[in-house]
């Protein structure tokens, strides 16, 4: 068409006008650190694996998860999921059920027989891991992935360590535990059971190991001096739980007093209940001061476990004990009141904490022990070069997830040390706080409650208390994730830009700004649901 001059123009020709020159500040994409990831003791990229789970690609989700933690099914049962306590979604309705999705993925992996890929090249280095518990097996997994030859030695008859001997099967069924242990063995990790390491230096020399990771669990129950008659039956909690794994079940009688307020006390009480006994927990402080997780106390109470708060055992006899009532002082410490009470008790189980057997460290030069644990540096290495330690052996909170995290961290440092280098963790992204999100865009969806085992069966059997999510539930739960701080390709920036200055790169490739046209209005930043864009002053 021969167009009339000036009044008639060619379509779309305004591309010649680069409005980007108007800009005084510009949007830039960034990844912020989701609070869940930040909080996870095992360093899982929770948001990352939920992203795959959201689309129903459970295998990709599981593979992403197991980059950091090989024990999805175990975690989904025994992790205290502190991630959920910091989940931004809690400020909308309820936190995302991260733990239940993790369990679903773990169970799915077992069901589908997904396995880990052995390393493609061997480093030629040998590492000894002492202890086949969460920390040791986690380290073994990560070291193996890095191509090292790993041998795990454990004094016990099974793999799992404290996960087997400290956690009742109604919380962690043994087939699940075995499946996730075996999967690591299948990568080419050598595990020697019933092989106690008496002296680490001897063992390293004997096996020509280049490095060692010590991850011995706290298997020794702490004792307390309770005035007791000869006939009084007093045992420690960890022995009770360990004997549950063997042929000979513990003989505790009908009325069992469990002394302590931690998770182990609750575990023992609930175990006693399942064996037909009548457990009473005696604890010197109040419920809100008890170190046990409240949900565990709640489940125990539901199952018929009796708890006497603010009580200490003064004396133990053959069939009875005397307790003294306590009162909290101004500072919240329990003080004796002089009021006594007698309780029937066939046995007393002491759940007052555990110690680690550090005998294998005798005579290791440079190595420092204090308060029953081994000192390690930031790189998890002890004072003796090449010997690293983690889990219950080192000063830290003692739980499975922390132990698994130690295993990963130690493995990275061991790997670097073996190469004569040092490992530096990449800098953490800034935190994706709730204020950075635009939560308008998320659908309303309360948390899916995991099915609970019927209460009668819980009191009489060792079946797993907490059920898993079915697929549709897990999908629902995964999709509740806000993807805090990380682009999940919702297309909002692409859509809301009045200047078409966002380029969509295609599925999985995210977006790019076209600064030729971006005027810097900031609508994309305001309307990004997950806070993955920020404004930066333009250098003028």
């Amino acid at each position: 068409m021969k167009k009339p001059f000036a009044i008639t123009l060619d379509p779309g020709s305004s591309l010649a006008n680069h409005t980007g020159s108007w800009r005084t500040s510009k949007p830039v994409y960034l990844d912020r650190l989701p609070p869940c990831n930040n909080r996870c003791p095992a360093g899982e990229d929770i948001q990352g694996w939920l992203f795959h789970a959201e689309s129903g690609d459970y295998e990709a989700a599981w593979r992403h998860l197991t980059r950091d933690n090989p024990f999805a099914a175990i975690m989904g049962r025994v992790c205290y999921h502190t991630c959920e306590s910091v989940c931004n979604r809690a400020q909308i309705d309820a936190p995302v059920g991260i733990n239940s999705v993790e369990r679903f993925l773990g169970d799915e992996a077992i069901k589908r027989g997904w396995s880990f890929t052995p390393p493609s090249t061997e480093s030629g280095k040998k590492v000894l891991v002492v202890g086949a518990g969460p920390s040791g097996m986690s380290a073994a997994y990560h070291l193996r992935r890095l191509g090292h030859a790993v041998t795990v030695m454990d004094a016990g008859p099974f793999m799992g360590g404290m996960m087997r001997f400290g956690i009742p099967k109604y919380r962690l069924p043994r087939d699940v535990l075995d499946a996730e242990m075996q999967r690591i063995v299948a990568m080419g990790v050598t595990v020697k059971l019933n092989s106690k390491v008496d002296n680490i230096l001897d063992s390293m020399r004997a096996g020509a190991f280049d490095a060692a990771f010590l991850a011995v669990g706290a298997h020794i129950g702490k004792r307390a001096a309770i005035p007791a008659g000869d006939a009084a039956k007093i045992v420690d909690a960890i022995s009770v739980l360990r004997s549950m794994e063997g042929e000979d079940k513990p003989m505790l009688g009908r009325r069992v007093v469990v002394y302590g307020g931690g998770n182990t006390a609750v575990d023992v009480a609930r175990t006693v209940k399942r064996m037909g006994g009548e457990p009473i927990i005696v604890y010197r402080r109040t419920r809100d001061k008890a170190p046990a997780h409240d949900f565990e106390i709640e489940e125990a109470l539901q199952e018929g476990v009796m708890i006497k708060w603010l009580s200490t055992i003064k004396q133990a006899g053959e069939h009875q004990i005397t307790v003294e009532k306590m009162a909290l002082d101004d500072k919240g410490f329990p003080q004796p009141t002089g009021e006594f009470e007698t309780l029937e008790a066939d046995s007393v189980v002491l759940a007052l904490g555990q110690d680690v057997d550090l005998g294998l460290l005798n005579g290791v030069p440079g190595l420092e022990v204090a308060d029953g644990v081994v000192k390690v540096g930031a790189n998890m290495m002890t004072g003796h070069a090449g010997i690293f330690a983690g889990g219950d052996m080192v000063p830290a909170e003692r739980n499975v997830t922390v132990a698994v995290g130690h295993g990963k961290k130690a493995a990275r440092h061991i790997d670097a040390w073996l190469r004569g280098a040092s490992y530096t963790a990449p800098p953490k992204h800034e935190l994706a706080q709730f204020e950075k999100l635009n939560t308008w865009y998320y659908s309303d969806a309360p948390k899916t409650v995991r099915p609970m085992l019927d209460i009668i069966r819980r009191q009489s059997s060792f079946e797993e208390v907490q059920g898993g999510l079915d697929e549709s539930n897990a999908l629902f739960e995964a999709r509740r994730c806000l993807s805090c701080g990380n682009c999940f390709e919702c297309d909002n920036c692409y859509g809301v830009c009045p200047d078409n200055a966002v380029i969509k790169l295609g599925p999985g490739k995210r977006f790019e700004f076209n600064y030729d046209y971006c005027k810097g209005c900031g609508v994309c930043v305001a309307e990004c649901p997950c806070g993955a864009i920020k404004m930066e002053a333009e250098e003028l």
Partner: protein
Amino acid sequence: MLKQMEGSKAVAEAVALCRPEVICAYPISPQTHIVEGLGELVKSGELKNCEYINVESEFAAMSVAIGASAGGARSYTATASQGLLFMAEAVYNASGLGLPIVMTVANRAIGAPINIWNDHSDSLSQRDCGWLQLFAETNQEALDLHIQAFKLAEELSMPVMVCMDGFILTHAYERVDMPTQAQVDQFLPPYEPRQVLDPNDPVSIGAMVGPEAFMEVRYLAHAKQMQALERIPQLGTEFKQIFGRESGGLTRSYRADDAETIVIAMGSVLGTIKDTVDAMRDAGHKIGVLGITSYRPFPIEQVRAALKSCKRFVVLEKSLAVGLGGIVATDVRMAVTGMGLKGYTVIAGLGGRAITVTSLTGIFEKAMRENLELVNFLDLDWKAVNKQLEREKQTRRSGPIAEALLRDVGAAGTRNY
């Protein structure tokens, strides 16, 4: 085919023969019979493939025509007087966008005071809007000019007004030679737009143009009218070949060859002027006539040529440039610049005031004696005017002029319109 019919109906039939595709209709006297006639032809099915749209105003009428024309349809509307003013913004827009719309203006005075009768104030108010303006002398010419107008408009991609005197022509029954469809089809090819809105070849029409190009756009409109000065006579020739009669052209002289005095006018009043001139010729006066058919573009060269042998001219026009005098006269004076002619302006027939042979004879004789003012008002009631001027001098609240004058002249003073 010869027919005895009303001017409006004749125009309606002629427009229909041009195969318009979109017709926008909004009634205003004295244009009504034209759009009624077209409505009938569309409704009856005689005019096929045509959208006849009853719009809600003249502004909408022109706007719909703009849209239709930009959409590639041959578009037509008709109006008059207040209607033309009401659509004025769109009138300028149509020419600015170069859309070849054809519009009949059934010329009528502009109020206030409201007046439905004929003069040329309406068209001439749009003198500079960029449209071409062709003035018809007779119903036959009105009919013929419409056929030429579509061709001219579409060739230039500029809109054309065909102006015909309200009532005097629109409502007059006369004999006309109505061409056949085949003749019109032979003369007027299907509309091939210069620009059209088409999803398969998109353009933006109607851009905002700033100082950097606005003057050029305006000049190009002027250039098109200059092209029209060449094209209009050619179209008259082509028209004659097919239809067998003279019609159109830029100007037409009558008994002017040896004239010392030439009367210049537009529209139907040329008939009365010719009668007057015939009588004066019979009486031995060397007087002739120059009729202007194309008011825009204004045929400067043709006017100069027509006046080259005379001594004086009289422009008789049905319009008043208030505060100056004549409108057409101003253009003629510009055309004859440097020719040393005496020229007189006669304002006549405003608001339908009858223009009689007697009055014309009187004023032409005065002109020949060179006994005229520069600007003259034919048959003005000076008594009434002076009375009112006197009244206003004496009384602050002299009241509305029009009503006072009606009382003074005793005409229908108590009637309610």
